């Protein structure tokens, strides 16, 4: 497993951007500037970054209610993301969607999804388009351990396998489906074993190590692009925050939360191996951190200048004409 300097630093930059975006979103929520609810992706950054590094703008993804990370890794504009969270006309969805429905079709992001497992068949259908039109595009569906117990998971993986669709199912096992721990939701320890039941490869990786995610995703992308069909990729991870902002987390001990946050931090880990492997120095990483912080500041400032989303055209957005 070798990774070059440019790739390592880009993966680090994307992960750092996601973490900083989540930190700022949390702050804005605390200031009552964000309405509704947000679900933080902190702790899971290596998965979105490692997978999306292989994707082109014309490849498609479907995302989840915990979707900021996928959106950023697929190349979204941070200002338009913040503007959406702030309910501005300049947001990706002009205030109609909010955190749980951000889409960026210009970059192939077919949307976050408020329904657990809702995006899995949609990604399958996008892969059907690629196959039907004979392109070499592919689709990635990100979803959590909770979604792996929905019917859409079963039906979609079977359809993709029998049709050899160019799709990758990325199951982010962050250990909890809302408040239910995976141990009480699965009788198997390894979710990836389910792949064999559909006749597709199942890969399980340490989702805190972006190098391993990147390598496994590369393998799955290669299969999809060369017409060899779908892959189930399960990445073990840990959600640093609660299910949603303000979750009292009664289902977790303080010891677990504090211990796992330290043990499971893909960004701190990446810093360590980037320096140890002499791919870059601390100063290089600090420069990236500063650049990300400035970008976040600029994005928030831009978003806050946007006008509030107008209700005047709401009925016109229901149907395409």
């Amino acid at each position: 497993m070798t990774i070059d300097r440019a790739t390592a630093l880009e993966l680090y930059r994307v992960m750092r951007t996601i973490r900083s975006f989540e930190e700022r979103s949390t702050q804005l929520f605390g200031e009552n500037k964000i309405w509704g609810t947000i679900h933080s992706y902190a702790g899971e950054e290596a998965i979105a970054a490692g997978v999306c590094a292989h994707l082109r703008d014309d490849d498609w993804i479907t995302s989840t209610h915990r979707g900021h990370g996928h959106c950023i890794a697929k190349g979204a504009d941070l200002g338009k993301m913040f503007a959406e969270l702030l309910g501005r006309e300049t947001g990706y969805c002009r205030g109609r969607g909010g955190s749980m429905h951000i889409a960026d079709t210009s970059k192939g992001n077919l949307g976050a999804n408020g329904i657990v497992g809702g995006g899995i068949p949609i990604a399958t259908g996008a892969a059907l388009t690629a196959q039907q039109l004979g392109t070499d595009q592919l689709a990635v569906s990100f979803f959590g351990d909770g979604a792996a117990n929905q019917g859409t998971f079963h039906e979609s993986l079977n359809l993709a396998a029998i049709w050899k669709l160019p799709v990758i199912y990325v199951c982010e096992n962050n250990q909890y489906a809302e408040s239910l721990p995976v141990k009480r939701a699965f009788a198997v320890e390894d979710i990836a074993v389910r792949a064999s039941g559909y006749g597709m490869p199942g890969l399980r990786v340490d989702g805190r190590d972006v190098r391993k995610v990147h390598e496994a995703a590369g393998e799955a992308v290669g299969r999809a692009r060369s017409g060899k069909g779908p892959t189930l990729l399960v990445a073990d991870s840990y959600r640093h925050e609660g299910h949603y902002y303000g979750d009292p987390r009664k289902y977790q001990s303080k010891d677990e939360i504090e211990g796992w946050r330290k043990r499971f931090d893909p960004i701190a880990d990446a810093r360590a191996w980037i320096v140890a492997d002499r791919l870059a120095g601390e100063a290089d990483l600090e420069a990236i951190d500063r650049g990300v912080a400035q970008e976040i500041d600029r994005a928030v400032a831009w978003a806050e200048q946007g006008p509030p989303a107008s209700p005047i055209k709401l009925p016109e957005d229901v149907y395409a004409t």
Partner: protein
Amino acid sequence: MPPKTATTTEPRPGAGGQSSSTREMFYNEALNEALRLEMERDERVIVIGEDIAEHGGAFQVTAGLLDRFGPTRIRQTPISEIGIVGAAVGAALTGLRPIVELMYVDFSGLAMDQIVNQAAQNRFMFGGQARVPMVLRTQGGSGRGNAAQHSKSLEAWFAHVAGLKLVMPATPADAKGLLTAAIRDDNPVIFLEHKLLYRTKGAVPEGEHVVPLGQADIKREGTDLTIVTWSREVLFALEAAATLADQGIAAEVVDVRTLVPLDKARILASVRKTHRVLVVHEAIKRGGYGAEIAAMIAEEAFDELDAPPKRLAGLDTPIPYAQHLEKSVVPQAGDIVAAAKELVG
């Protein structure tokens, strides 16, 4: 989002526009012709569903299409309703124009999340970034002894969801013309056929035939009362109107054809002419779409009415099995005659 790679061709313009010559065809043959013509016209159109290939569909609507278009465009699936509908949503978002065949509308419950939370709302939730050009064809209604899980009329479910269009053709010609319009529409269209209409015959225009969505049709003119109805009840209403004419009552039959968007203007124009309105549907009365139409008329043309709007609809029960029981729970032609006489009398 359109496909990034330019492998598709834009649809060819229709050959010669609306045709004037017609043939007698069955309703399911007319649907089949619409599918074939649209698939020939636009290679992005595919059909996806259960038993649609060699078997030709449970009601023979896709008969012969496998031979003509092959197994990737006539994409037969396992029994996986939400997987099928969801795949169609994803395909529609990314450049295809899929037509889903769900064998019975009663099975739509298995796929409802993809219909309601995804297909219907994607465009709105994404602030207009997306289009979902898909048709969900299915069939409902009673009259074949299929009992409660295969006989419902569920149009009110779909009418209540913002973002869906809703079509219910009664005649072979309308079936062809409305399906053509639905396939060309850039929105998710629920296209509800009726299992007892498939083997009804009528004159169908040859070649390209488009009936725009949102236009009701006066199936019979009259001056004494307006019967507003759709799907199989149109046939019962026409039968009733003939009986009423023998008794000196001239009933106008308005076939709504598309419930969403609703042609309010044509309905209201008829009410302004007759001043009495009977709304008839097979679906159960409680929460039925007839209430929407009756309320709309009351709100917009109250002063035109000589009597309160009247509804005649299915009993508030599941559909029973035995033939005589089945008939007893949905309006028959005789029931319409009786209701009309009560309204006029």
